[in-house]
């Protein structure tokens, strides 16, 4: 998706996300922001993100730190007095951000390499995934993972990759086409 077209195409894209009219019923009460587990360190709070999207100003939302800090803990969606699925909106915005190449490399690589790895065998093989992630973001960070890796090994939690026989061809094709 061409990021310059974002504001023009947003309604069509977001309409794929449930109900835009529902987003526009947001009363900006801030319950979502108050409940959010990461809002204190985000550039835009969940309330602000909903506001941006509701009035069609998508680009700042797609470049925000909020959408990738979101842990999908569902506190916002659970408590929204309008029933707006705020957490689902964050996921949708992440999809759009990655597709428009607006996401930071850490956020994009974390998602992309995870999916690439799990599609190989149907199961995630963490050592392989972590190495690929580190190579894309910061190879030296592998050193800081040393302690965790040793702990896992010491407690019998590191093994060899295991494969599932499930047919994942359709999902692999989707991944190749960019999700």
């Amino acid at each position, binding site marked *: 998706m061409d990021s310059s077209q974002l504001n023009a195409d947003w309604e069509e894209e977001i309409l794929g996300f449930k109900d835009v009219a529902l987003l526009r019923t947001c009363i900006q009460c801030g319950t979502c922001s108050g409940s959010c587990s990461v809002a204190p360190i985000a550039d835009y709070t969940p309330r602000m993100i909903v506001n941006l999207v509701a009035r069609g100003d998508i680009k700042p939302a797609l470049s925000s730190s909020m959408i990738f800090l979101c842990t*999908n803990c569902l506190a916002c969606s659970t408590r929204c007095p309008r029933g707006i699925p705020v957490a689902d909106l964050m996921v949708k915005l992440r999809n759009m951000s990655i597709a428009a190449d607006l996401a930071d490399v850490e956020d994009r690589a974390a998602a992309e390499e995870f999916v690439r790895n799990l599609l190989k065998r149907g199961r995630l093989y963490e050592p392989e995934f972590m190495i690929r992630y580190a190579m894309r973001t910061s190879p030296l960070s592998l050193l800081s993972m040393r302690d965790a890796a040793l702990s896992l090994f010491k407690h019998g939690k590191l093994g060899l990759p295991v494969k599932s026989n499930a047919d994942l061809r359709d999902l692999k094709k*989707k991944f190749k086409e960019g999700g």
Partner: protein
Amino acid sequence: MEYGDSATAVCKALGVSLEEMPDWVCCGATPAASYSYDISLGLGIKNLGMVKGGSVVTPCSACFKNLKGAEAHLAKQKARPPRVQHLFQLVYDDIGLAAVREKVKAPLKGLKVASYYGCLLTRVDPTFDSAEDPKKLDELTRALGGEAVKFAAKMKCCGGPITLAKHARAVEMGGTILKAARATGAHAVMTLCPMCGTMLDLYQKEALAGGNGDPVPVVYFTQLMALAFGLGAEAAALDMNVVSTRPILAALAGGRK
């Protein structure tokens, strides 16, 4: 893994046989949905398509969320998906605490437990327990003979989904929960999600770095059930937890004096 091994042992003791689906695939956790919601949903649909016997149970809250999403999607399309349950729901609803109490041979007397529900279980399924102030894990603690401490941080998110790309923040979130647990005087934190377990256990040293106070053992709920059933420390897989679980055994020894 401590959660899988103890869960299998405990369910067996309760007369329930857990059969691992041979070709299950990763539910995609949070990253798959972040990359592509379609792929995430596709993984869930694939998993549900492989379920035999009409129902599937998962020990993990993130898997539960993803499978529940696929279940809802298929139900909307009138495709009659299998029933998706969290392992704790199976224990509480299907097996029942009365049956659990009957199997308790070594009550957890003297053990103070902070029940940590995590953010997802009761928000994904608020019909099971309150999405604001859940109580059922505490009921399990008492059924096992332990003392359930009041724990305000019991639903705070552990930060699992952002532990890779936003590690510092994730570890900080785990630290908040652990410090709160320590303040209650609990001997252990009991979890119902392995990802939460990882954040509070594997990364505990990092989360509590530079602070005062003792480490807090973090155990999956079936580990405490295995202990209370008298199945032994090996069935409870207590060696697999990263933070030493010896304080739990010490508290129990003290409680039984």
